[in-house]
């Protein structure tokens, strides 16, 4: 019995020092899953749009993602994003996207030549025709200082096309 109390005391101390009680955890039911993210930039402002219809903006990528989450009704969960589309204007943000902790490393990275106005449509297309470059591969290429070409997402009259 004494060992049990010692164990619980140690557990409580570890919990306090580990700072586990951050208060920002959410039950799965409260999550709003994102499946596709579109990252754009204009005049120094970064715009992030999710396939759920939510959007955010900020001076940098992290600020834009924070704005996206705070503006959503519910807990927006970007870790479920499978497809990350970065427009040409915002391509300078690609290295930050690759190392962002808010995105799953297995998410696929695309480069869009134009602004993507309908992320839901893009998502439908990409689910059927996924690319091959993941954020983890892109990150590895960055670290090894080699070039890795991202698939290019182009909008056509009938829909989308993936090239490159």
């Amino acid at each position: 019995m004494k060992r049990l109390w010692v164990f619980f005391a140690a557990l409580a101390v570890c919990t306090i020092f580990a700072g586990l009680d951050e208060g920002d955890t959410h039950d799965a039911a409260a999550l709003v899953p994102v499946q596709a993210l579109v990252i754009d930039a204009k005049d120094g402002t970064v715009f992030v749009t999710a396939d759920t219809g939510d959007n955010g903006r900020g001076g940098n990528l992290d600020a834009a993602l924070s704005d996206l989450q705070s503006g959503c009704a519910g807990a927006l969960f970007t870790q479920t994003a499978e497809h990350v589309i970065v427009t040409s204007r915002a391509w300078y943000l690609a290295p930050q996207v690759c190392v962002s902790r808010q995105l799953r490393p297995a998410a696929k990275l695309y480069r869009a030549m134009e602004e993507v106005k309908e992320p839901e449509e893009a998502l439908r297309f990409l689910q059927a025709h996924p690319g091959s470059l993941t954020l983890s591969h892109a990150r590895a290429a960055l670290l090894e200082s080699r070039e890795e070409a991202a698939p290019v997402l182009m909008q056509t009259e009938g829909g989308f096309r993936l090239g490159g």
Partner: protein
Amino acid sequence: MVDGKVLAARFAGAADFETRKVISGGNELEIFFLDGLTSSGDIADFIVRPLHEARQEEREETLFMRAERGLVWCASMKKASSTDEAAELLVNGFCVILFPKTGKALGCEVKTGEKRSPSAPEAENTVKGAKDAFTETLRTNTSLIRRHLRTPELRLEESVVGRRSLTKITVCWVEGLTDPELPARMKKRLGEIDIDGLLSPAAVEEYVTGSRKTAFPLLEFTERTDHFCQGLLDGQVGLLVDGLPIGYLAPVSFGRLMRSPEDRATDYLSASMLRILRYLALGVSLLLPGIYAAMAMFHQQMLPTKLLLSIIESKQDVPFSTLFEVVGLLCAFELLQQAGLHLPQAIGTAVSIIGGLVVGTAAVDAKLVSPAALIVTASSGICGFTLPNRELSDALRLWRLGLTVLGGVFGLFGVTAGLLLLLIKLAGLESLGRSYLAPFGEAEVKGALVRERLAEQKWRDGMLRPIDERNQR
């Protein structure tokens, strides 16, 4: 000296206490017996008739000697030198013949044949194994053991426990095989018991194991005589209690509790695969609800995307948190089991079906619980039923609930901490002086996880430290 009046006074008011006077050899003798425990026909044919037919007058002392040496026809005869001894003989199915002038008494065994015959085990199903399960009668049980183990070295030492119940207990071991420390420890523990009655299995288990504060079984119980005898041959010490249709084996370890008697009924490959599956089921049963609660509440990023999307979708409109859902379902599962256990079989089956299928389905349709939580809880429960030992399964159910709460409150950190606590607890347990985690502590994992071919099992379990370590040449 046996006093008839005192003996009758001891049983005053007992409707089954019978007395009969018989004239034998010119002496008036008194016969006492308890109706129901004895066979009236046998008393009449083998006790009263021979005594009555001894018409030649003789001294009571001589008559006593003749009765002791064959006048009375019974296979087992005991002398009672005091009224207490005579009373004890009466309650054990003996008929007591009192010779009042000399104050001596003879007890003749005339037990009734009305007792339950050995039948197939109810809780431990067997396909190919022996179907003679233990009964409530101690002597029947010892005879069943003798049929399986015909060695003269089989020791069956009887003692009486319980001031009022006077329950007979037999300690069984094989001389020259079992470590002598084990039966000595068992007998010492039995000798230390000083209670009114030893009637329930819990009383036996708690007192014999030293009333440890643990839900984990420190004694293995079995209905099967073949399993019991195999345990004796492995070097364990056995315990039979009059009135209980089970046999106990000790010492026991976690590895032994995870073995099923049916492992020896199939080939070693199938048995090994089933054992590994059993350990996996143990892990799933213990950890799945806790890990699910932790993942769904804290570590969603660890789940595959499609699975997470499926869980999120299934939890839409469910008003309760994942922890509340899972704990509620675990409690509902336990309640269903208890309801099925205490109801008559026909109703119990119907209740289980209604509770499991109808209520479960209705709860999901009403969006009170999510299908994912229901599947997790049901899978965990079913995996728990694959464990061969019911008490081990019950103990792990308690820990499953605890780990679920820890997972729901602290995430995977809580589950890990709970698991470590469980390991610490198990490592500290001992059964009759042997470590509970013995096979794993000594890295004898191979014998615990995988069943070797019988031809290769030349050595007995080292944990039991048998005198004769070799079980085949």
